[in-house]
């Protein structure tokens, strides 16, 4: 079948578009293009059609969203063979794995999938360690254990855990002490129970009952008495604060803060809620005190909205933006 004139004109329009946008067009090309355009209304129609098609495909989107190094550009360019294969298996195998690793990582910290114990968004979990200690994991937590060769180690990769030593375990002679390692240092509970949280580049230790030691990667050391808590990084231990046991309120599904930045509450809520909560810099610094439910994050957000000078904007179910309310003078 021979090409219809419309198709021919379309091919020509594409050729011109390539010629003119390729970076090597000369003035003679420009003139030739104008002559082609003027030669027939069908040429003009084809050219306008191409521009409109390109416009609808590309220009309805803010170019900054498609910046070369951004997540959207990556997503548009990503090879999709693996997903395609999964799609083809779908409906063939009765128990086929859900292919959406993409969807899954909203719920699970996928970077830590190799961890022995893992909790997703909104989940808590309690596990018994081989020496009889009990470890409870907060939401979005990843921890691995190593109890081989007389060692007693827990490695916390993300999130928070409370470890309650087995009765008398601290008195066992010879056995090496339990060591809870984070990227910034180690926590060594002497007795009772301890909370360890691993934030982006800092860790927190709270001696809930009994005493616990902190040893940073850089060699700083501190012994915390019952109820005391401290944040630390590789080289520095922040001042020790008394009465910090409320840091473990997540075990009861709550977050309790005493004059702490709003960001800390939001971080806690985010672990219990798929999607994103974005807080403006100004709002993140607001000081908050109170008790908020973790298992009902909507209620917690509403409580914050009523008690804080903030505005809450929702963009679908997945994005909530919090900013400081601007007062009308």
């Amino acid at each position, binding site marked *: 079948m021979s090409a219809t004139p419309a198709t021919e004109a*379309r091919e020509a329009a*594409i*050729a011109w578009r*390539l010629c003119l*946008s*390729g*970076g*090597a067009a000369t003035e003679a090309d420009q003139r030739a293009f104008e002559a082609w355009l003027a030669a027939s209304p069908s040429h003009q129609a084809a050219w306008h*059609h*191409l521009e*409109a*098609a*390109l416009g*609808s*495909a*590309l220009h*309805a*989107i*803010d*170019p*900054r*969203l*498609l910046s*070369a190094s*951004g*997540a*959207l*550009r*990556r*997503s*548009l*360019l990503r*090879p*999709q063979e693996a*997903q395609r294969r999964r*799609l*083809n*298996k*779908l*409906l063939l*195998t*009765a*128990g*086929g*794995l*859900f*292919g*959406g690793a*993409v*969807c899954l990582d*909203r719920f699970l910290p996928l970077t830590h999938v190799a961890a022995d114990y893992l909790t997703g968004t909104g989940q808590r979990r309690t596990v018994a360690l081989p020496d009889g200690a009990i470890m409870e994991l907060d939401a979005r937590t990843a921890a691995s254990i190593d109890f081989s060769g007389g060692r007693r180690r827990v490695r916390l990769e993300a999130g928070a855990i409370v470890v309650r030593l087995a009765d008398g375990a601290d008195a066992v002679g010879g056995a090496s002490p339990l060591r809870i390692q984070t990227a910034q240092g180690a926590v060594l509970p002497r007795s009772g129970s301890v909370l360890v949280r691993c934030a982006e580049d800092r860790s927190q230790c709270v001696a809930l009952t009994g005493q616990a030691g902190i040893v940073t990667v850089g060699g700083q050391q501190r012994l915390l008495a019952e109820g005391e808590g401290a944040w630390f990084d590789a080289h520095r231990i922040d001042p020790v604060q008394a009465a910090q046991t409320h840091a473990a309120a997540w075990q009861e599904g709550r977050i309790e803060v005493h004059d702490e930045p709003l960001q800390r509450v939001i971080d806690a809520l985010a672990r219990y809620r798929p*999607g*994103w909560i*974005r807080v*403006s810099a100004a709002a993140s610094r607001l000081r908050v005190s109170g008790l908020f439910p973790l298992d009902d994050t909507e209620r917690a957000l509403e409580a914050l909205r009523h008690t804080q000078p903030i505005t809450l904007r929702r*963009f*679908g179910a*997945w*994005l909530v*933006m919090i900013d400081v309310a601007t007062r009308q003078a």
Partner: protein
Amino acid sequence: MDSHLARNARFASIYKDDHPWLERRLRDGLRNREDAQDVASETFTQLLQAPALHQLLEPRAMLVTIARRITWRLWRRRELERAWLDMLRIQPELVEPSAESRYQTLQALQALDAVLEGLSSKARMAFLYSQLDGMTHVDIAGRLDVSPTMVRKYIAQALQRCCAAFDA
């Protein structure tokens, strides 16, 4: 009129015989009851528009084909949405003020994704480098390690797909 009736009767019988089967399969595959329900009902909605429905020999094969296409769209939409939110997290000033314009952006992203879908990954890169970043064909050729002629071929493919999508 008769063929219209035959069509409806055929649809009703396929729905009765195969809807529970399809939804069960989707539930197993997608591991999500709501997604399975959505994909199954959308599949039947599209089946209703299929030509020559009353002559369909293998309804299940047809259903699987449609359901896969819908699932693919669902997966892509979610991934694009996630990447879009990622961008907004870094550049909150790009959040559109109205729900409608946000919806339009997501629709536009899906449309662009569909245009790029049939293209090789080099063709997709060539097209975006050229149209969004304003790179010359020679520069793109250098970046992708192909000849400038190949770059032109890639971009022409993408432009063809834009036109086809625009006409559809």
